[in-house]
């Protein structure tokens, strides 16, 4: 899921300057799961906004804020409250914020920072394991992604900063290449070490993203 965290009050106040009436939007998917934009956080935001002297005209938690059509539909159901507001404050990832901004010409303000595609270890502890690079090498690297887990995204083994199997950027973190090496050894196969991996095709990361998958 997409891990997000709430922006600091300071930054929110700046973005909300001159906006006395606010409509709140949360997300029932990722932002609820990582507790940055679920019902609870929407209520907390409402209280905080009121403490700054603002009115909250209404709120909605959309099942999946990244669903553009659903987001549009949910907003329409709250048309009066939305139109009364000076701005929509959206507690969702960047995708969710943009579902809103593509559904209304009202001022849309994002309340969260989107951090990464995260695995959940336990509540509150998320790990980035995949960077959606569009060119997956996991089958050769014993299921450990060097693009994401190596600080430099190296494809042909560790850098010179490797020390006792730890990463040069953070000695608390295992070197991804060390993990790959150890697991491949346990699997008794050379995997990625058997070849020189050519330069990555970053052309597969499409920006602006326009993937359309037909079913």
């Amino acid at each position, binding site marked *: 899921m997409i891990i997000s965290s709430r922006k600091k009050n300071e930054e929110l106040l700046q973005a909300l300057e001159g906006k006395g009436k606010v409509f709140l939007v949360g997300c029932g998917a990722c932002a609820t799961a990582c507790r940055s934009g679920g019902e609870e956080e929407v209520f907390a935001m409402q209280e905080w906004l009121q403490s700054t002297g603002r009115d909250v005209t209404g709120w909605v938690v959309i099942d999946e804020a990244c669903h553009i059509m659903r987001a549009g539909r949910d907003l329409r159901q709250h048309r009066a409250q939305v139109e009364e507001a000076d701005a929509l404050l959206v507690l969702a990832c960047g995708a969710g914020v943009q579902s809103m901004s593509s559904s209304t010409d009202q001022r849309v303000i994002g309340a969260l920072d989107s951090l990464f595609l995260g695995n959940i270890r336990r509540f509150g502890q998320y790990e980035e394991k995949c960077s959606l690079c569009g060119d997956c090498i996991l089958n050769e690297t014993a299921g450990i992604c060097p693009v994401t887990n190596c600080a430099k995204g190296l494809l042909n083994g*560790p*850098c*010179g900063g*490797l020390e006792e199997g730890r990463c040069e950027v953070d000695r608390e973190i295992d070197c991804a290449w060390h993990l790959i090496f150890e697991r491949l050894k346990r699997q008794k196969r050379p995997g990625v*070490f058997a070849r*020189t991996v050519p330069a990555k095709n970053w052309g597969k990361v499409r920006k602006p993203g326009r993937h359309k998958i037909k079913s």
Partner: protein
Amino acid sequence: MSHLSEQLASGRFVVTAEVAPPKGIDLQEALSCAEGFDGITAVNVTDNQGANMRMSPLALAALLVRRGIEPVLQLTCRDRNRMALQSDLLGAAALGVENILLLSGDHARFGDHPAARPVFDLDSVQLLQVVRGLEEGHDMAGRPLRGAPHFFAGAAVSPEAEPFELMFQKCSKKAAVGARFFQTQAVFDPHRLERFMEAARPLGVPVLAGILLLKSARMARFLNEKIPGVRVPAHLVERLEASSHPLEEGVAIARDMTACARTLCAGVHLMTLGMEERIPEILQG
């Protein structure tokens, strides 16, 4: 043919040293440092080392060429994507730079621009392959070059890194894709250097052992904490600590490591960090 490649081919013990481009455009210190080297075959020009922004090493390397000093241009993957790397390599060749040392580069997080977006579009192995392609007359896209460059391309290795086997597979890959020489990260442990050389010798790539001049126990501790891949063993830190003349002790340590490298390696790469005048003493080892 560069002097470096000739001398390594001749089997003579080779000494390289290094100079950092200035932060700013005042070249006096860097040039007088490079001109002051005695008995050095080639001078490495570092590339935003430690991820601290400085003048382009290509500019300083070209200025050294003009002064008759042979540079080893260091080029990292941290700050340039594949297009910038290739275009800098072509520029280097046009400016008379033949020796290059291809590196991944310290992560930007260590330096003075920690908010910079690290590039790492290529890794050092892939960059070595790119160099071979340029020499063969084509770029990474397979397009022909009008005038192919000629390089003497080397790579870095970390003989003391653990696990050894993992570090060494990268080293083998570098040799396999055409590294013509290795300069090592600073080494302090003769046994580890020996173990590395036993494994590396069959690769047939000459190795210049990295010798770093320790000036004080404080510096040694700083290196251990802040510089990736450098590990000063505790007994040497203690030796520096106990000495009333730590710099002299540091020179002695460097001299001993040089003596060790003479028996094991094709040469040494000296990192004297502003104490270039001590090089003759270090080389007595």
